[in-house]
């Protein structure tokens, strides 16, 4: 990909603007339509067709209906992608499923998540759907959800499945999902209009009674009918918007998938199977989400302008063509080598090389992830795949080596947690400690699905324990702190603890927070003040007082708050901050594995998935 992760995010955000414009257009046209039907109606006495008050009544009424509907839907969807999955009849897949095909699906998803530096998303299977289709929903990589049809699970080969999942991951990494969810909210608002219309029609046509009431009733019925027709036009508009937005994204996602897997054959195979078997969905709710799917989910009658997906033949053709072309893309590959150089501590790394790695996937990384998963000891995989073990595993990874620290931690947890859990954590600790630094984050990512299975009460206790462990002042290493925070951040939206969307903040507002973060990272260096300044060069609007913070002002609580603020960073600022952090860390000429992992964990706060060292 020639543009970097943040440029793509910006682009996706701008598309949201386009969406709003289309939507307003649609609403204006609908209001005009209803107004004219009413204004030119038989009850008009003045002979003119300009009634500002009627216009106001109509506008307010319709905007109220559409606004109410959209608002309700969007607030339902604010819980994240799982709402969409439930709506479409999905069943959550267990990582240790006894079904061969499901396990294969989980393995493919896990590899891809680890390779791109994203938490393993929950995977849903739509049991009632025989066609081949898939979707990704959510606001950000941290609350993404992947859904596949039963047809997908049973009828595709591993390569083809990988192609489809890669396509979905590219949606996650490209920032498409936020846009898609907003679209769903809007579509629902317009659907509400038809609901109101139906009610009006029913009242109008079926009201009996006095002659006077009959006239009113008939007028109401006509109004209802008019609204209904216009409502259908509104749905057309909705489809149009869905189509306009999603067709282009589908081509982009296809080519990204090829880039990720270096295996167009997989994706082409899947598309060919769809051509044979079909990707239509049975569920009635498919219309609301048709723009989110891998293949067209509605029947083929809506072709041409309203098609949310390009025709399959065209997609296959484009993929085959790109396969035959000389692919000059060495850009991601070269960066992978540079990053690999980090591991041996050789190169003085350029900040922009690391930043360029964000949101990238490559076949090499997928292979590494595959190897990593294969080589994991079974005690680890058994532990992280179910809730009890997953909680114990997280505690195990946070238990310090230093005996004083460990004593303190166990004491803290001892009063709050069940003894069996702590015993398990202590048992697992040496096994996890034997894993290299760069395995820690992937293991946390692997544990996410199991952690989401905690009950609300269990989650609350767990989250509070993690917070206490993390913010025990200066008693915990920066890396463990970042890990604890990462876990809480990824779980919170799922349990309704925090909204998936954070308000955006300006660069100016975020400078104090950036200072805190840069200071903590600078302290990992032999020369903190110089390291700080090297990084600060990348940040915009630095004032003369922008300096390394004194040690006692840089507590974990402060860092925590700073990271909370930074979650609202705009893409451009996030990019600068990542570059600043990288430069600060590499001031001593070297980024070792440990430092890189800290960077990865911090980037996660910015919803910026940095892939692991290859």
């Amino acid at each position, binding site marked *: 990909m020639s543009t970097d992760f943040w440029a793509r995010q910006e682009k996706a955000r701008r598309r949201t603007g386009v969406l709003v414009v289309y939507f307003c257009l649609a609403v204006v046209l609908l209001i005009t339509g209803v107004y004219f039907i009413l*204004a030119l109606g038989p009850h008009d006495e003045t002979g003119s067709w300009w*009634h500002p008050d009627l216009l106001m009544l109509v506008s307010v009424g319709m905007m109220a209906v559409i606004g109410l*509907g959209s608002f309700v839907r969007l607030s339902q969807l604010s819980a994240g992608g799982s709402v969409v999955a439930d709506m479409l009849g999905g069943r959550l897949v267990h990582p240790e499923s006894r079904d061969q095909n499901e396990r294969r699906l989980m393995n493919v998803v896990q590899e891809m998540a680890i390779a791109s530096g994203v938490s393993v998303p929950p995977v849903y299977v739509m049991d009632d759907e025989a066609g081949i289709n898939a979707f990704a929903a959510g606001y950000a990589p941290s609350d993404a959800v992947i859904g596949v049809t039963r047809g997908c699970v049973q009828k595709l080969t591993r390569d083809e499945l990988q192609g489809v999942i890669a396509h979905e991951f590219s949606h996650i990494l490209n920032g498409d999902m936020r846009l898609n969810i907003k679209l769903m909210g809007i579509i629902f608002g317009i659907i509400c209009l038809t609901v109101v219309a139906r009610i009006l029609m029913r009242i109008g046509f079926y009201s009996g009674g006095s002659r006077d009431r009959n006239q009113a009733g008939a007028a109401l019925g006509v109004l209802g009918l008019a609204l209904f027709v216009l409502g259908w036009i509104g749905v057309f508009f909705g489809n149009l918007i869905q189509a306009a937005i999603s067709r282009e994204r589908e081509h982009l996602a296809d080519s990204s998938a090829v880039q990720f897997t270096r295996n167009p054959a997989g994706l082409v195979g899947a598309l060919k199977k769809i051509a044979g078997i079909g990707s239509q969905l049975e569920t009635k709710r498919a219309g609301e989400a048709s723009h989110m799917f891998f293949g067209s989910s509605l029947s083929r009658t809506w072709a041409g302008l309203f098609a949310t997906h390009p025709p399959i033949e065209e997609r296959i053709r484009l993929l085959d063509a790109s396969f035959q072309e000389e692919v000059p893309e060495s850009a991601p590959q070269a960066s992978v080598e540079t990053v690999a150089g980090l591991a041996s501590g050789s190169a003085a790394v350029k900040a922009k090389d690391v930043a360029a790695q964000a949101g990238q996937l490559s076949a090499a990384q997928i292979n590494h992830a595959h190897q990593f998963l294969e080589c994991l000891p079974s005690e680890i995989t058994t532990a992280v795949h179910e809730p009890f073990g997953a909680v114990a595993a997280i505690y195990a990874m946070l238990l310090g080596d230093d005996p004083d620290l460990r004593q303190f931690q166990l004491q803290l947890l001892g009063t709050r947690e069940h003894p069996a859990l702590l015993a398990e954590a202590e048992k697992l600790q040496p096994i996890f400690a034997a894993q290299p630094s760069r395995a820690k984050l992937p293991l946390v990512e692997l544990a996410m699905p199991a952690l989401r299975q905690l*009950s*609300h009460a269990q989650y609350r206790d767990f989250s509070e324990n993690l917070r206490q462990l993390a913010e025990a002042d200066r008693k915990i290493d920066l890396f463990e702190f970042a890990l604890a925070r990462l876990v809480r951040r990824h779980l919170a939206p799922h349990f309704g603890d925090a909204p998936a969307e954070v308000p955006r903040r300006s660069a100016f507002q975020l400078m104090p927070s950036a200072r805190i973060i840069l200071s903590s990272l600078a302290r990992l260096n032999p020369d903190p003040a110089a390291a700080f300044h090297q990084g600060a060069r990348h940040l915009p609007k630095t004032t003369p007082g922008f300096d390394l913070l004194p040690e006692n002002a840089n507590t974990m609580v402060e860092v925590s708050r700073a990271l909370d603020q930074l979650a609202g960073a705009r893409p451009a600022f996030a990019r600068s901050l990542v570059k600043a952090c990288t430069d600060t860390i590499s001031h001593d000429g070297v980024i070792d594995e440990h430092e890189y992992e800290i960077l990865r964990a911090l980037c996660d706060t910015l919803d910026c998935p940095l892939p692991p060292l290859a």
Partner: protein
Amino acid sequence: MQGLIHLAEEERKFMKPILALSGTVIGLILAAVFGLLVILIVGGMYNTLVKLRNLFKNAFAQIDVQLKRRYDLIPNLVETAKGYLKHESGTLEAVTQARNVAASCAQTAAANPASGSAMRELMGAEAALGGALSKLLVTVEAYPDLKGNQNMISLMEELTSTENKIAFARQAFNDAVTRYNTKRETFPTNIIAGIFGFEAAELFEIKRAEERENVKVSF
């Protein structure tokens, strides 16, 4: 100031088309919007009940995975012990029987975790299995050769570990069931629950005191 309802000449001209729509019609339009609101609210409550029900169904799936693991361990346990416990075939037989009954109850419950009767049957079968297992373990204590057998040791270890996981999963399930039941019983969701037939769900509890002791943890 003249009366509030006194309209000036221009105002009356503007108001004509609205008045022409007649009070009944406006009233009915408002009723329709109100109707939409009701539908959205009722829909919201219905969806919440469905969501909470799905949550506890998923939570049961977690228990089920661990129960299955336990059911798979037990035949191994019995096989290993057989050689040493030649005169205790009754105890072994009881364990195998109880295990088979529990396994089939678990299958029924997994198919429909919302069914109170399936849950109660499973609880009964699990209690019985717990009793049979604890008898077996007490017997094993008396045979140091068996107790020291490597295979036996690792199987026992796995059994304890699985018990812990079951207990943890049970806690999660019961939390989820409580949330669902509470929502189902509070106003105004209880009306919707009544209309659409949402039934109370059963907590998964272990009734036998001996079982609880055997597990060595208290959740």
